[in-house]
């Protein structure tokens, strides 16, 4: 906790911004209610913070991602197995794409 830390950019890494936008968009689309989100997120933070104090940076968004994955798994909108398979497809697509070319999922 520091009063002198500069405000700088709102997100440290692009994925954090995408995660934030995805979550807000899902909330606005009514996929889950915002209070459901905050209570689930609060629970994750509590569990994770019990092991080690969170600094509010990367670990905060890691907890956010874990919460969203859990919510979407329970809701059946993105079951864990499906999400893991899609993650692998993206990883494969990155590894198979020449540097500089746009990365696309193979059909």
């Amino acid at each position, binding site marked *: 906790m520091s009063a002198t830390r500069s*405000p700088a950019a*709102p997100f440290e890494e692009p994925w954090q911004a995408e995660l934030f936008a995805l979550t807000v968009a899902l909330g*606005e689309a009514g*996929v889950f209610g915002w209070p459901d989100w905050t209570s689930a*997120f609060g629970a994750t933070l509590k569990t994770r913070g019990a092991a080690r*104090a969170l*600094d*509010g940076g990367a670990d905060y968004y890691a907890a956010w991602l874990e919460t969203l994955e859990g919510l979407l798994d329970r809701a059946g909108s993105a079951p864990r197995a499906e999400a893991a398979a899609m*993650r692998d497809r993206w990883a494969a697509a*990155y590894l198979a794409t020449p540097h500089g070319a746009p990365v696309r999922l193979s059909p």
Partner: protein
Amino acid sequence: MPHDHSHDDDHPHALLPPEPALRVKALQTILVGKGLVDPEAMEAILETYERKVGPHLGAQVVARAWVDPAFRGRLLADANAAMAELGIAGRQGEHVVAVENTAGTHNMVVCTLCSCYPWPLLGIPPAWYKSDAYRARAVREPRRVLAEFGVTLPEGTKVRVWDSTAEVRYLVVPMRPEGSEGLDLAALAALVTRDSMIGTGLAGAPA
């Protein structure tokens, strides 16, 4: 490296993004594919929070409240309506409550549950607001936390800590600094720091 390219380039293929980025991308692909989220809506949210929304909006509200007693009254009575007058709208229908600092009471905001925050007015919260240390200590020992932020209040000033929720987000209206009489709205807004609207700072003194 698990690949077998003969390029001189260290990164013959597209760089593998960080693990969480892949997981976010995976969720996004699935949800867009199922029509549960609109990529354009996501883009609009990104654009808003990365470039448009930030503490400068909250500062406009505070500066207006300093110079316009009628606006100040409306802000304290119904912050969402007062914000709307300035063209600032909430996204999730969150209810914003403005709490005013006085010589007798200093207000400070925390979210002990997670990190609820008045996004439409202040943008994305700083890391310290989301840290366990702040979330745990703001309620327990607000004066010590304030001291760490360089804020020392007169002994007679009470500290009131507001715990945000999914439904209610707080905006602190800091006290108008002495010597700021006669400044225009833009100059006043420049004195209103982000931290002063969370209550971990005071509005700056005019240069």
